[in-house]
């Protein structure tokens, strides 16, 4: 059974999240303090972390960095602040997705969690090539030559989404729906931040990307093999 760690200091909300997630057939581990997260995380590694930004003990953004330092587990930030800087700070700390409280519908939260847990590229098997990178979709590995590049699941999904259709230019919206599972969300900051993070890991020179290429005014596409 899937295990989700819910980190929130509001007992009522945490309990409610527990009820909703359990109702959807997901096991829940409740943590109420930021500084207790890592201990629970190591003892009982979850499949996904639902992380509030404002936490006693240790700030959610800091917790996010600590988790990222030792795991590629999907992280969804929960924020009572809709402010851009908080969202961007969370995404840059390594969160894959975020949800602003209050959520439109609890079902939306479940949908997001499921998207993050699902093998998004179940339809693709074997290996793909993007630029000078080799992707082994089945083994969930990306290599440049013999060197293994560590990516989060979301970054991996993003890279595979681009690689499996080399000629196609993806708009930010279409990436949002393919990789994040949004139906009509409009927050393209998610895409921008994650493309930056992905580039910092896979590009030779993130300033002049050759793997994930920007198509001005439209979106992104996979870099052509051998192109400099």
């Amino acid at each position, binding site marked *: 059974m899937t295990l989700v760690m819910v980190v929130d200091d*509001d007992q*009522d*909300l945490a309990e*409610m*999240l527990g*009820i*909703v997630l359990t*109702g959807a057939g997901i096991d829940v581990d409740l943590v109420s303090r930021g500084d207790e997260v890592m201990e629970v995380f190591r003892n009982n590694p979850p499949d996904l972390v639902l992380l509030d930004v404002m936490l006693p003990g240790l700030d959610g953004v800091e917790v996010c960095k600590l988790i990222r330092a030792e795991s590629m587990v999907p992280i969804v930030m929960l924020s*009572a*602040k*809709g402010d*851009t800087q908080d969202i961007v700070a969370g995404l840059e700390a390594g969160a894959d997705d975020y949800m602003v*409280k*209050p*959520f439109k*519908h*609890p*079902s939306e939260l479940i949908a997001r969690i499921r998207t993050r847990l699902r093998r998004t590229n179940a339809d693709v098997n074997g290996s793909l090539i993007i630029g000078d990178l080799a992707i082994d979709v089945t083994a969930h590995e990306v290599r440049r030559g013999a060197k293994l590049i560590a990516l989060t699941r979301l970054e991996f999904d993003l890279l595979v989404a681009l690689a499996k259709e080399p000629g196609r230019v993806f708009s930010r919206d279409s990436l949002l729906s393919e990789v994040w599972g949004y139906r*009509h969300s*409009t*927050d*393209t*900051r998610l895409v921008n931040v994650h493309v930056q993070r992905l580039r910092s890991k896979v590009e030779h020179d993130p300033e002049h990307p050759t793997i994930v290429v920007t198509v*001005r*005014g439209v979106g992104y596409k996979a870099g052509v093999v051998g192109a400099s």
Partner: protein
Amino acid sequence: MRSQRSPLAQSLAAKVILSTVLLSLGVVWLTGSALYSQLSDGIKKVNLESSLADARSVFYNARYQFLLVEGASQPQIQAQVTDVITSSTSIGTTEGAREIILLKIFGKGDTSKNGQQPNYSRASNGLLATTIPENLRSKISKDFELSHQFAPLTYRTGKTIDALYVGQRVSIPDSGRYEMYLVFTLANQGATLDLIQNSLLLTGLVLLLLIALITWLVVRQVVKPVRDAARVASLFTEGDFTQRLQVESNDEIATLGNAFNEMATSIQAQISRLENLSNVQQRFVSDVSHELRTPLTTLRMASDVIYGQRENFDPVIARSAELLIAQIDRFEKLLQELLEVSRFDAEVAVLEPTDFEFIALVRRCVADLGVILDSPESQIAVVAPNTPVHIRADFRRVERIMRNLISNALDHSDGKPIEIECVETLTEVAVSVRDHGDGMEEASLTRVFDRFWRADPSRARTRGGTGLGLSIALEDARLHNGELDAWGAPGEGANFVLTLPRIAGNEISGRPLPVNPHKRSEVQIETI
């Protein structure tokens, strides 16, 4: 503006110095002229007196010399005349020269003797009798008294020089009466007067320069603090409320400085008090909104769970669950908008421009709202260019404006069709949202963007609008440097026109779509 004015109008110092110098010039000119005329009169008078005294002694001596040769032979007399002439004249025609002219008077009754009497008429330096002024000659011939006159002296070479003529009658034995003239050239006196004049001019000039310098020094003493005050005041106006004048003395300027500083301190205190109040208030609104979000999330999830079970409930409880969900939606929207308004009020709303296609956004908003609000999509007609219209703006905000305008139109359309029209120019995009509902009074137009304002308070809130939508839409438009205009007429519906620069932050040069739909046909639209 400042550079267009003359430097004189700009500078108090220049004005004061110029007027002081001009006035001083007048005073120096007057005193100089008076001094010069007094001096020259005095010098001329002294010269005249000494010349007349000289002349008297010369004439006296001549008469005496001529008496001595009474009865002597003609050559002896001739020699004596020559002696008198040479001893009384200077040599050459240099400055300060003295000439003598001796002219025989041919009396009317003496015609018989004219041929017999020897004529000893002589003149030094070969001067001609014609150089002597006629007035003087007639005076001398009538009168035995010493007479004088100022007149130019002309030498044979043609050289003319100012001179004093002094004349008297003398008698030479056996020859009769003569006019004797002593001519004093005034070259020396002229040189002296020239020297005085030049000295006066030079002194005047130096005096003027000194006055200008002194004025400048004095004015600077007064003007510098005034300039400092002006500089500090303008810095203060620009928002640097920490600026103060330096007060170093105890005079009127210091009083001005102290008064200014007191005013500045008072203004600073007032402003920081107001800023503080406003900050506290913004922060409070923002905190309240944030604090409300967590319980609202729990509330929403709980109500959703209840709502999900509504089939198992009594119909009254099931309906209550529906109402609960709807009200939580409305409450949440209000909270969100309050938070947005508090951001605008705190001036922390930030534009996040991206490139996107405008028409697609408009069409999607129409489709979304049509679905969400359960209105038939055919109720909204969209007229737009067939080609994509790319703009650079804050997607989220533009979408919010469109949603607010469309849902406002749906709220007031009474089920009648809504028309949306998009146009583009080189520099702007514009979109109008027109409904054919009850419309508004003209007086309402100014208030339509006010928070929580409703055209008709008795009107039911059909769509559950928060009353903040249009106000936020206007702020969103202005954040782009765009504009949102409203038009309405009772019974004719309302029209809202959003005009945005193609690149957020640029100026909009006009309104491609007039807000009054009746003026639509009169305006030429520059489309590309």
